[in-house]
């Protein structure tokens, strides 16, 4: 479980996060949604330690991540898997090397065990046999799936996903969402997804946190979101004519 308490973050005079509180539970997919500049990516980066919050706590199983130094964070970081918006695969490494990299750094597995683990992760994301390809040889959807394979290589307890559907066609987006949902169930991990994609919100959002101007504006499930009367949330979720029609059907 991850608990976020009163998180504030500013960049110069720009106060991006203004006291966010939230709880992200294991085995559930939590979505952070909001318009551009609402602070959702900043919140995610604070949670994984890429940004230091100005104030507040981020508790991993009760342990305050913000107060730990680099060395003390390593045990928690070994339990974190993250998929980046642009996949962030290491260009100079093959698919297999990308997946085995964390294993090489932090485990004493033999070469065969590491390759077996890479093969298992690749099978899990339907990319079996693509071990020797380089990231430049992969499509956008394949890169995302390799990113997921790398994220699960260490059997994470916490899975963070930044804009998993950006730049993907609707069909591939749904496949990625399904994969995230399956992995969350399989590993019973605490999954936090930052997204703009309303299909994801409606499809896999067990818990949804809506940020508006750096504040928590609404929280609830994907079932509750259709019936909310929060104007800012409705303007965001049901912005398109298609979604407005869809809302009538709920």
């Amino acid at each position, binding site marked *: 479980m991850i608990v976020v308490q009163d998180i504030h973050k500013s960049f110069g005079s720009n106060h991006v996060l203004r006291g966010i509180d939230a709880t992200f539970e294991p085995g559930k997919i939590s979505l952070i949604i909001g318009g551009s500049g609402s602070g959702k990516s900043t919140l995610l980066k604070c949670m994984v330690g890429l940004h230091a919050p100005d104030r507040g706590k981020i508790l991993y199983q009760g342990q305050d991540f913000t107060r730990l130094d680099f060395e003390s964070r390593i045990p928690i970081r070994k339990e974190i898997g993250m998929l980046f918006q642009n996949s962030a695969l*290491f260009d100079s490494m093959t698919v297999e090397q990308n997946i085995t990299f964390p294993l090489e*750094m932090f485990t004493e597995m033999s070469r065969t065990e590491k390759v077996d683990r890479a093969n298992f992760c690749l099978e899990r994301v339907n990319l079996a046999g693509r071990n020797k390809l380089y990231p430049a040889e992969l499509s956008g959807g394949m890169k995302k799936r390799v990113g997921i394979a790398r994220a699960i290589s260490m059997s994470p307890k916490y899975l*963070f996903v930044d804009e998993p559907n950006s730049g993907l066609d609707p069909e591939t987006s749904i496949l990625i969402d399904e994969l995230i949902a399956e992995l969350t169930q399989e590993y019973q991990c605490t999954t936090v997804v930052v997204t703009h994609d309303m299909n994801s919100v409606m499809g896999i959002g067990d818990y949804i946190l809506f940020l508006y101007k750096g504040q928590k504006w609404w929280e609830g499930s994907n079932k509750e979101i259709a019936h909310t009367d929060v104007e800012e949330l409705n303007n965001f979720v049901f912005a398109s004519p298609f979604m407005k029609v869809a809302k009538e059907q709920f």
Partner: protein
Amino acid sequence: MFFTYFGQYLLLLRSVFKRPEKWKIYWKEIILEMNEIGIGSLGLIMIISSFIGAVMTMQIAFQLVSDLIPTSVIGQINRDSNILELGPTISALVLMGKVGSSISSQIGSMRVTEQIDALEIMGINAPGYLILPKIIAGVVMIPALVVVAIGCAITGGLVGGALSGAVTPADYIMGITDSFNGFTVSVAMVKAVVFGFIITSVPAYKGFYVRGGALEVGQASTRAVVIGCISILAADYVITAMML
């Protein structure tokens, strides 16, 4: 402003020299970097140094118009100029352009594509993993390249002198073997080690803190080369003043 950047550079270096997570992986990276920096620059350094040596011979001969000065002095001046200054400094400036810009753009690209963030989230000390192997490779391979450069420049001087008729090979060889002071080689090696550190660490710093996209990576690379070249020349002056 200067002190802010210099402080940031020193803090980065402190992270670079933290104990590696796994030496085995770092060692593999060091070998790869040594190949990239050393073997990858060998041809360029040999060509440039040979021509510099040849041109130096002809220019020294042009300036030594007095019949009272033996032509063997050409070899002597060429040797000392190349060992003390041209070998280390010209090689370092050339390598700053070739190796430095490559390091800056490589690390900068990793920064803007979130690859460095990915390393940090995994719990890997990104400055150590990305920069330490480059610094070690630079400090080891650049002195080796400087030795090659000095050898090529002296040989180039011999060939250039013979082809142009400025000095006979016998006189030139007499000059380069006459009154040789081994301390000049020590000065050259100290310069090479310091230059090796600058050539790898300054561009790595500029690349590591780049923000933005492809345009900023290019700009950081240019700035890294400019700052690196100025740092090399400043270090050259300080080392010369201290050791000679």
